[in-house]
């Protein structure tokens, strides 16, 4: 059965056709963060003894870009198809709800990873890049992107208008990514904010990813893997249930 592969391919082609906006744009944004924060804070912030602050910043920015773009891919594709009405072409096909799930989340993972690779590639011109444990790095990148791609799928199904989706992005996704230790180690925070960070699943995605780069992290990568795994299982169950019942798709 090749139906889901075609949908996956179409979803990948959709963002690749506008790669300037969907890949180059996010890479440039990450670079601006790196240059400005790195320059401003290089001499003030000391995270790990042997690693420069700009080098510390790279994995956080790369993972943040992976997560935001994975979310953006599935959510914007769905909302556009809903608003334009062309989702009917999919609804008329024999594609099953699992086909939809795999294709949309798969394409979101691909976009996340492509942007992540772009961030690393461009960062290499400005600072040192570390890949101490590539297996962990890839595991967290894929799981994190899948988690956010699935969350994007849910948001895309739920939202009826672009502004609802923008609200989800601005009031949920952005704060949680920024407050997850992208720019700092949570050990530098006061105890209260450390506790808050520990409740944020995004923190574990970024911390685990950073472990893949440096071999050092705020918490054990196994703990991060557990948290990310459970979170992925929960949102996947929700997304698959929504697709199976035809939530906002089939009245």
């Amino acid at each position: 059965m090749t139906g889901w592969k075609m949908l996956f391919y179409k979803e990948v082609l959709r963002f690749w056709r506008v790669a300037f906006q969907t890949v180059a744009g996010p890479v440039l944004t990450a670079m601006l963060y790196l240059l400005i924060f790195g320059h401003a804070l290089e001499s003030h912030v000391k995270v790990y003894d042997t690693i420069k602050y700009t080098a510390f910043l790279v994995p956080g920015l790369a993972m943040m870009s992976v997560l935001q773009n994975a979310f953006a891919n599935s959510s914007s594709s769905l909302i556009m198809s809903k608003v334009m009405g062309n989702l009917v072409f999919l609804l008329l096909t024999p594609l099953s709800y699992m086909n939809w799930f795999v294709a949309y989340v798969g394409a979101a993972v691909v976009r996340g990873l492509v942007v992540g690779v772009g961030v690393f590639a461009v960062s290499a011109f400005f600072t040192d890049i570390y890949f101490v444990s590539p297996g962990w790095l890839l595991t967290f990148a894929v799981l994190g992107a899948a988690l956010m791609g699935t969350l994007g799928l849910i948001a895309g199904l739920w939202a009826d208008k672009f502004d609802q989706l923008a609200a989800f992005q601005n009031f949920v996704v952005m704060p949680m990514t920024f407050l997850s230790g992208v720019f700092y180690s949570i050990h530098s925070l006061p105890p209260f904010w450390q506790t808050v960070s520990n409740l944020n699943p995004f923190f574990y995605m970024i911390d685990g990813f950073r472990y893949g780069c440096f071999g050092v992290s705020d918490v054990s990568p196994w703990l991060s893997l557990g948290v990310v795994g459970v979170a992925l299982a929960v949102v996947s169950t929700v997304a698959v249930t929504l697709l199976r019942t035809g939530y906002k798709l089939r009245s």
Partner: protein
Amino acid sequence: MPAISFQSVSKAYPSPRGPQGSTFLALDRVSLDVEEGEFFGLLGPNGAGKTTLISILAGLTRANSGTVTVLGHDVQQDYAQARRKLGVVPQELVFDPFFNVREALRFQSGYFGIRRNDAWIDELLESLGLSDKANANMRQLSGGMKRRVLVAQALVHKPPVIVLDEPTAGVDVELRQTLWQFISKLNKLGHTVLLTTHYLEEAEALCGRIAMLKSGRVVALDSTSALLKSGTSNLLRFKIDGELPQTLAAQARVTGRVVQFPAQDAQAIEQYLAAVREAGLTALDVEIRRADLEDVFLSVMAANGDEASSPGAVASLQAKGALAT
């Protein structure tokens, strides 16, 4: 085995206005079968439930009760098989702006699990006069061209049953002719066709059998020729140079200056013309013509209650009221 079977299908929607929990019955125990190879017409005024019925058939909407099958496959329980047998041309002019015509058709084939379908895609493009647009982006196409692509998308998996939901709404004469030639050819090759349209002359020319829906109920279901024979067979038609008296207007169909009366025989014709003369009016361009499907349609609709009292019409009036406030 019928190509399409609706058995006692009902569908209620939440009422757009009115008390909480109240519903609007879009379909009320609709039962009808379309046999394999038929060219079947589904007619009815706006809000009669035609699109709801087709949406249920296509799996876009779920019925509250009743069963719907496509060549024996239940559209809910056995949806994958049912959808493989069905090609639906949606009423709305929708498209994916990211891709060109050929890509859109390849994707649609792929969703049905069909790879390397270019020979059939080329044939579709050729038959629908789209060959020179194959590599054009969907955004660049005119409305009529987009409509052709919709037809091609519906046929890309060679479905034995084809559903066209008002495919000629707002399209030019040339496309209509291309489209009907092509669909008629497919019908002759054995494809079953279900058509909804507001152009009754199209339905009369193309459809072997016709169902008329009103307020979610089937109010007529027969062969086109039997429907044409039913009711009035002749009409007296003339233009008038003034206002028709109320008593006469009630029996006539008035379109601007053109007046039509049902007239079975010469005596009825004489009576109508005499009444016009007595009212001090002159009848011009007098002709007697055979009743067409539009006349049958109007008499069936009139026989089944006043238009404005139907739930669909009430809903649409309420919607207009909502816009005005």
